[in-house]
């Protein structure tokens, strides 16, 4: 569904991603793991169109549609094509209500009934959000904000959902909940690209994983294989 070929990402003089290839099959959960500054976030920010100074191809071909190169397109265009992204740090709009945050997620759509249906689905996925639908986003707890960020990413009828560090800063019990929900999102038929520092949880849920170090892929393979790999164990899973 998504094929990244020879991607380079630059921030001014900094060369954050140095030519990586990634393939995400339809219906899968693929994860990018690695330390801070490895280039994980830069990669998905490039796919979502937020970073302009990139080189390489980002070929997107959902079933039933022709292939498009996402490189060089604006974020709002990419969202319309069915690629949603939930950014690092959740980035809930604190002064908007929960309901408004969800409506904003559906900005690219005009089908009122469909939006309402998807909103109800988000509310049934996260009943706590429904209870707080009139509350301002900024008043939610960290966990609730993460649920809202996930729900919001589902509002644009995405085919591919990219999640940047969804477990960051959450209590362990909430981390588990977030990963359960990622599995649920996947079972709804959404392909998931997951960027994580929590390598253990990410590898457990992912069908395929890439390990990044300073802008390059150093290792890749099936999630369960990498979990057993001694190199991975030593560097990312605490021995």
């Amino acid at each position, binding site marked *: 569904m998504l094929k990244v070929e020879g991607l380079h990402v630059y921030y001014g003089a900094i060369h954050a991603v140095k030519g990586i290839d990634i393939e995400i099959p339809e219906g899968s959960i693929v994860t990018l793991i690695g330390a801070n500054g490895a280039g994980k976030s830069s990669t998905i920010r490039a796919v979502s169109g937020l970073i302009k100074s990139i080189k390489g191809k980002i070929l997107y071909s959902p079933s039933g549609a022709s292939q498009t190169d996402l490189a060089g397109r604006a974020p709002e265009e990419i969202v319309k094509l069915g690629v949603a992204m939930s*950014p690092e740090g959740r980035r809930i709009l604190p002064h908007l209500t929960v309901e408004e945050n969800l409506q904003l997620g559906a900005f690219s759509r005009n089908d009122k009934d469909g939006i309402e249906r998807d909103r109800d689905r988000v509310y049934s996925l996260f009943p706590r959000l429904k209870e707080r639908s009139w509350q301002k986003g900024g008043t939610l707890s960290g966990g609730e904000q993460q649920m809202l960020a996930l729900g919001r990413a589902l509002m644009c009828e995405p085919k591919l959902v990219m999640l940047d560090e969804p477990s960051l800063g959450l209590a362990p019990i909430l981390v588990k909940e977030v990963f359960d929900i990622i599995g649920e999102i996947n079972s709804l038929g959404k392909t998931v690209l997951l960027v994580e520092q929590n390598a253990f949880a990410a590898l457990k849920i992912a069908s395929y994983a890439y390990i990044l170090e300073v802008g390059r892929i150093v290792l890749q393979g099936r999630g369960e294989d990498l979990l057993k790999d001694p190199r991975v164990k030593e560097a990312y899973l605490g021995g």
Partner: protein
Amino acid sequence: MSGSLFVQHLFNAVTLGSLYGLIAIGYTMVYGILRLINFAHGEVFMLGAYFVFFGISLFHLPWGVAVIGSIAVSSLCGIFVDRIAYKPLRSAPRISALISAIGVSFLIQNLAIVIFGGIPRPVARPDWLVQVMKVGEVRIIPLAIVVPLVTLALVLGLLWIVYRTKPGLAMRAISKDIETTRLMGVSVNKIIAFTFGLGSALAAASGIMWALRYPQIQPFMGLVPGLKAFIAAVFGGIGSIQGAVIGGMLLGLIEIMAVAFFPQLSGYRDAFAFVLLIIILLLKPTGLMGEKLEDKI
């Protein structure tokens, strides 16, 4: 001062306050989204007045058509200013856009001198708007009622757009987090243009009513009201629409009442606003309704 005279002053104050408030909204909306003080805003106010004048005297349009046409064209002017003077500087340091704003302001003023002529022109007003009515002891002109009512209607319409429509939702989202709003599928430049259009429409409406209230137009007529409305926006809390309206009203009230109660100060009328600005900046820089600057992680 007699009660009836006070009521008359009150009507004048609310009229003037409405006109400031309408301009102030444009400053506050653009600032809320771009953190830019659009100094060319007062010039849109001036253009609004001129367009109506030309619509009526040159093209013999009926008043209603001239007013609506002028508001529409002024809106486009505001969008055009953003497109040529601010949009290319979106990723430049903020000071660049500010300097550009000052430049555009001078440019439009001087273009207006070249195109419209520098001589003040009288404005012919419909008689019914300025025929003095006596309600008891109070003598007022219908305009002093029309201006606040039109302002109220425009502000309610604006609040409806901002709080009840999709572009309004996007405007509120952009004011906090442009990047995330883009990720939600919002075309930010379109929403910014929409904001400039809305603010300019209100400034033009204010300029038109200003020309009816003080029936003379000239290319620099936007300068002082523009600056004062900016002060009103800061007073009310820049970024807040409600604050801009309240700031405008209070500024109108202070100006009119200060002169009414202390006629010997009438020569300093314009200075009140600036003294007020200094006091606010010293005591409450965020203004009356301004949001505290906070970052929640």
